[in-house]
């Protein structure tokens, strides 16, 4: 019986993976072929999805992107022996798009059966937790400190230091909360990991629990991620059954359990204090800090609040040592970043790279330029609150500090590419409009400021009192940056000011008439 691997993560499904499956099953039945089909996550090359892999003597041979119509032809060309075909890309690990990545966190994603503990073990899983179970809490935290791991949710706070605060705060209960409320535009890394290698997250959270003395963990994710919720719940149940989760983990005397909670669709609930309120069953509204969640978090108890990718980096760190992780990267940004390349780009997907690569390399070499074939104009990094960079900033290295110096942020690693038809004034307006829709409404600069921001930009591009309105816009941006309660209002000016700085012509009502985006719209 030949083993076939076919992804079933949300992106692959959207690209027709299930239709490919049905075509394959029907065709195999017709030809009396026995197939063992394993549904995996995605390897991250969304441009090759659905990516079908066949197990052969030479290893797994991949074909992609496969459509249902390709199936008869593939079988005619004896797909099952891994033979030549126009769609054949060979062994994925030899393909430059995969081979040139530094896969640490996503090493198993797309490779393993997401719900199989045996498969996970066979690919190096639980090695980190096994080691952590033999260590003291302090040693576990120290290993994470040594790795230099920083929060992958966007703020970049050192994970080990946060853990240490929780570890040192006495309490009757402590919590691990995983922020999987991935709402940034152009991001899908959390989803991909939860759908493709959920046991890594289970393992990372359990190691965190050992490090700080927590007994209960929550994964807060989105209602828009039904496949991730299902897979995550399946993985938690499988880990429990195998003794890697629950009471007395693998006879160590330590106990920890995880529950998945699903949000109701508010972007602001990705902000850590709103997330905590939402998790407690309240309205998702930002809390003032202090107190820090590490000291008074969920239900008033010390809480580790980390992004999926921070927690999922931990098993590798414990298995291979913090120093090995810190060997990757540049400056104070250690390890790898899961870049999510999206928007108007020919080869989009998830690319895990050591910090330090440039945007130009990403967009041109990995992404293959724009999908439309038109000239590149702008790129937004770090979600809807990230900066728009022009061509001349493309050599900015992927590094927290370098991006901050250039007036931007890495955020959660989402990279959205635009060609020359983009209207940056419209994008700046969208930043305010997005903030107005998603603001929790607690603080004044965000609640009222975002609405006024949309109005001011409308007046600017209409050519109404432009000198005065530029000044008003500048003051509003300054106010929101300095006076907002949380990063939602505080970062909204970043896309606006970057658009104003790098693309001032788009805000000039006279120049706008001849701009390509306006010409395009008129066509």
């Amino acid at each position: 019986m030949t083993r076939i691997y076919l992804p079933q993560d949300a992106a692959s499904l959207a690209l027709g993976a299930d239709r490919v499956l049905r075509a394959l099953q029907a065709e195999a039945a017709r030809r009396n072929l026995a197939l063992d089909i394993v549904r995996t996550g995605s390897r991250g090359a969304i441009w090759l999805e659905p990516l079908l892999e066949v197990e052969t003597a030479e290893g797994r041979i991949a074909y992609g992107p496969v459509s249902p119509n390709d199936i008869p032809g593939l079988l005619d060309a004896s797909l099952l022996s891994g033979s030549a075909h126009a769609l054949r890309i060979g062994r994925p690990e030899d393909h430059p798009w995969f081979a040139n990545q530094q896969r640490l966190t996503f090493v198993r994603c797309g490779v393993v059966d997401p719900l199989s503990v045996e498969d996970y073990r066979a690919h190096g899983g639980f090695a980190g937790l096994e080691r952590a179970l033999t260590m003291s809490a302090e040693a576990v935290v120290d290993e994470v400190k040594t790795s230099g791991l920083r929060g992958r949710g966007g703020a970049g706070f050192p994970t080990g230091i946060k853990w240490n605060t929780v570890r040192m705060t006495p309490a009757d209960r402590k919590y691990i909360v995983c922020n999987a409320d991935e709402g940034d535009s152009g991001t899908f890394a959390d989803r991909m990991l939860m759908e493709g290698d959920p046991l890594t997250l289970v393992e990372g959270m359990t190691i965190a629990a050992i490090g700080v003395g927590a007994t209960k963990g929550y994964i807060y994710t989105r209602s828009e991620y039904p496949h991730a919720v299902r897979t995550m719940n399946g993985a938690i149940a499988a880990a429990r059954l195998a003794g890697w989760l629950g009471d007395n983990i693998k006879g160590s005397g330590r106990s920890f359990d995880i529950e998945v909670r699903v949000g109701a669709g508010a972007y602001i609930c990705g902000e850590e204090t709103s997330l905590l309120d939402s998790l407690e069953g309240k309205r998702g509204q930002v809390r003032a800090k202090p107190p820090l969640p590490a000291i008074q978090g969920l239900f008033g108890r010390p809480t580790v609040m980390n992004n999926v990718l921070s927690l999922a980096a931990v098993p590798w760190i414990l298995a291979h040592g913090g120093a090995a992780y810190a060997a990757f990267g540049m400056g104070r940004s250690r390890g790898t970043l899961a870049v999510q390349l999206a928007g108007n780009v020919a080869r989009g997907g998830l690319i895990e790279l050591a910090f330090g690569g440039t945007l130009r390399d990403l967009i041109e070499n990995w992404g293959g330029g724009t999908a439309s074939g038109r000239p590149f104009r702008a790129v937004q990094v770090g979600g809807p609150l990230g900066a728009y960079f022009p061509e001349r900033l493309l050599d900015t290295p992927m590094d927290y500090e370098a991006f901050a110096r250039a007036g931007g942020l890495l955020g959660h690693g989402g990279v959205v590419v635009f060609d020359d038809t983009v209207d940056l004034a419209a994008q700046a307006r969208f930043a305010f409009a997005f903030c107005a829709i998603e603001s929790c409404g607690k603080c004044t600069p965000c609640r009222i400021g975002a609405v006024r921001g949309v109005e001011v930009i409308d007046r600017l591009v209409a050519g109404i009192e432009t000198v005065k309105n530029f000044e008003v816009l500048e003051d509003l941006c300054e106010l929101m940056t300095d006076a907002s309660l949380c990063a939602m209002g505080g970062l909204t000016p970043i896309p606006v000011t970057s658009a104003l700085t790098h693309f001032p012509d788009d805000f000039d009502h006279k120049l706008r008439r001849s701009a390509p985006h306006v010409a395009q719209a008129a066509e």
Partner: protein
Amino acid sequence: MTLIRELDIGTPIRVSDTTVTLTIDGEQVTVPKGTSIMAAAMMMGTQIPKLCATDSLEPFGSCRVCLVQIEGRRGYPASCTTPAEDAMVVHTQNADIAKRRRGVLELYISDHPLTCLTCSANGDCELQDVAGKVGLRDVRYGYAGENHLDAPTDDSNPYFTFEASKCIACSRCIRACEEIQGTFALTMEGRGFESKISAGLGMRLLRRLRAGLPDRDAERKIGDRAGHAGTFGGDHLRLLRRRLFLQGGNEGRNRGSHGALQGRQSQ
């Protein structure tokens, strides 16, 4: 008619065995640990403008009028939610701070009825006071933008009128119901610019409060459910009159108002 007004130090008094000493605008002050910067400043006689803070409620940090600067820290933290710490050096007044406070008030007033002269809160209105204190002269956004000026007035209660168009969404009423009364009678509905005080989806605001007034029908309803009709309504009403909103009454402890909730009896 306004009577003697007590100083509102903005956040509740904290009791602690230990004290912290900090410098505010060049003056040293020693306060119990846990005291907010706002309260520490108010205690030494420096009034920091504020709208959402009041010393009968826990700090909330929503209005952003009370922002200050702390040496060695980034940005402009709110003085109500930031605890005073030893050796902290705080500035409560300078041009940068003033500009931001004015900016916040400019946003508030861009969504507020310009009817001060005919408003019953005129002359005894915290919003008006703070707008004056921060020197707001001009609202450059104009008044034609999106706003709540047409928000319906709720007069379902015999004692109060709630003019939603004047509400600044500071959540004081909600927090009083939670923290002091424990009734959780009110909540915020919607988010962002759509946020509004609500007694429950689609419910008229003061129906809910009225349920506790000496109204036989309402008393029976509440009594059936909770068995303490008198206490519920009586306390709630007293709270609103004495501590928070009602202006023009004959209570000694008058803390002013934002104008949205007006007592009708005494007018």
